[in-house]
């Protein structure tokens, strides 16, 4: 797959006024996003996600390093912007306008007019499921509807690349699912999506690759299947007495998720499943199930952020390896 977004040692430092301390928002970022993938861009608050997006859109300017979008280094050129759709986090849409009018405004900024504009607006409304609410004033929209209109304005130009900043934040579970489905459909249509989010479950469900950012440094990047390698086995047993669990804990087998009389035992890498089963039998524990368990993105995220070495960029190494 071809690379559509690429950054080379991208660094952004916000210089402090007077005698304050400079803020290193982004350090030596080397990122590659491939055509037709959903890239989940993760990180805690203030980790540099929005800074990266703003740099890619030319809203702020890099301290050093460079960026390429679709092979073009002139990030701010109208030719590039025609191929990008952007949904900012918590954007405001003029509430005195109707949903359709908002889209007509943004469509005109893309240089669309007449029948073509009407067609694109109708298509975008259809895609985000807002056709029926198109003539309602934005002030009467729910948060989910505003987010859909925001997504629709990003889709008006049928962009090759979609950059979405927190697209599901603050939405109810149904609205999240609907937005997630829309994004997955867009990926299936061949569009490239860069999604910055705190919603790790959402990202895990739809992303092909993720990047984890902490304190402006890309800590980890790659395919989800390659990153979520920590696989464990969970053995469920019934009626386990505390003394038996203490003995198992001494061997490194931790009990977790006690539900009524059932206990889930997490088997670490250092203990084989056969050894664990032998120990359970020795303690007369009633075996209920044995199941493999893959580490979740949330667990990976927490682990990476905890282990993060501030100001030690690994982007270049990841780039070579990927």
């Amino acid at each position, binding site marked *: 797959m071809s690379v559509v977004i690429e950054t080379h040692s991208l660094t952004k430092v916000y210089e402090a006024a007077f005698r304050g301390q400079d803020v290193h928002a982004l350090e030596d970022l080397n990122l590659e996003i491939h055509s037709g993938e959903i890239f989940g861009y993760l990180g805690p608050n203030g980790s540099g996600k929005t800074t990266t997006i703003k740099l890619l859109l030319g*809203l702020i300017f890099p301290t050093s390093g460079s960026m390429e979008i679709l092979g073009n280094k002139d990030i701010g050129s109208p030719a590039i*912007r025609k191929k990008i759709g952007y949904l*900012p*986090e918590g*954007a405001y849409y003029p509430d005195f306008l109707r949903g359709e009018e908002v889209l007509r405004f943004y469509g*005109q900024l893309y240089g669309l007019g007449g029948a073509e504009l009407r067609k694109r607006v109708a298509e975008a409304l259809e895609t985000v499921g807002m056709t029926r609410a198109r003539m309602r004033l934005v002030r009467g929209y729910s948060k989910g509807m505003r987010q859909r209109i925001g997504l629709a304005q990003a889709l008006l130009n049928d962009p090759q690349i979609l950059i979405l900043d927190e697209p599901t934040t603050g939405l109810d579970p149904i609205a999240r699912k609907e937005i997630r489905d829309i994004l997955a459909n867009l990926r299936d249509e061949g569009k490239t999506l860069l999604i910055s989010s705190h919603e790790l479950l959402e990202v895990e469900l739809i992303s092909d690759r993720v990047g984890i950012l902490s304190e402006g440094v890309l800590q980890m990047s790659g395919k989800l299947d390659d990153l979520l390698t920590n696989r464990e086995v969970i053995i469920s047993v019934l009626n386990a007495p505390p003394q038996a669990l203490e003995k198992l804990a001494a061997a490194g087998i931790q009990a977790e998720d006690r539900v009524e009389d059932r206990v889930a035992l997490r088997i670490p890498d250092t203990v084989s499943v056969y050894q664990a089963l032998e120990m359970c039998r020795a303690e007369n524990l009633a075996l209920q199930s044995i199941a493999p368990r893959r580490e979740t993105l949330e667990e990976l995220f927490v682990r990476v952020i905890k282990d993060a070495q501030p100001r030690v960029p690994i982007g270049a190494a990841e780039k070579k390896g990927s």
Partner: protein
Amino acid sequence: MLMDHIRGPWTIAVYTWREGMRKKTLIGFLILSILVILGSSFMTAFMTQTTVGEAQTDIEAKLIKDICVAAISIFGVLITIFISASVVPTEVENKVVYTVLSKPVRRFEYLLGKFIGVQLIVIINLVLMGGLFFIALYLKQRILPTLLLWSIFLTYFEFLIVSAFTFAVSCASSSAVLPTIAGLFIYITGNMTEYLKDVYVRAGQTGLWIDELTGKLAYGLYQVLPNLQNFSLRNQVLYLQPNDPPRDVMIPNLIVYGLVYAVAGYLIAYWVFRRKEL
């Protein structure tokens, strides 16, 4: 190709105008000004009649003119400064600027659209206020007050200069407070440039270095700041016949003068905004 460069700014201008005309502060100023203008006509009904016939009508007309000219100047400039100071910082604050500038719109075009939108608002407010004044004066004197039309026309160019510089400061600011203060400063000093000339002429007589420095500073400001008094036909509106032509003013020169300062203000705004971190 040219249409592509015009369409974006014009779309933004119309949007700015539609949004601006809904701002409560602006509506408040406009309603107040209209009340004052309409009120001036009612006030004449309660005046004690000291003379008769035409002389009495002239006194009443002068009262209307006095109040209306002041109302248009005060509320007009407040509306101009308020809207010029707020359009860009508000859009940065509510992130509309992100969605607009991520489209194929250059910053130059964005600012041009915002600036034209501001001018549409200023012009429409001026036409509303001036129109009411025109009607009030016509009803009182039964003579078409063409001089008033010239006065309102030139007042727009005065507001254009104030607007351009307020707009320039707003592009460097994150809130509307500083540009509002700057706009008031430009309006006040722009109406007092003759005093700066006086300071320059009188300075240097004591031989003290501070005196000379003050004189040079005043001269510098006199040269740079626009002389907004040039645009004022206030005394002519008050004391000449309503249908007299304007006297002692070169209207084409004043238009060019106003446009030069407006373009300078816009270019400063662009220079500030072109590398602004949003």
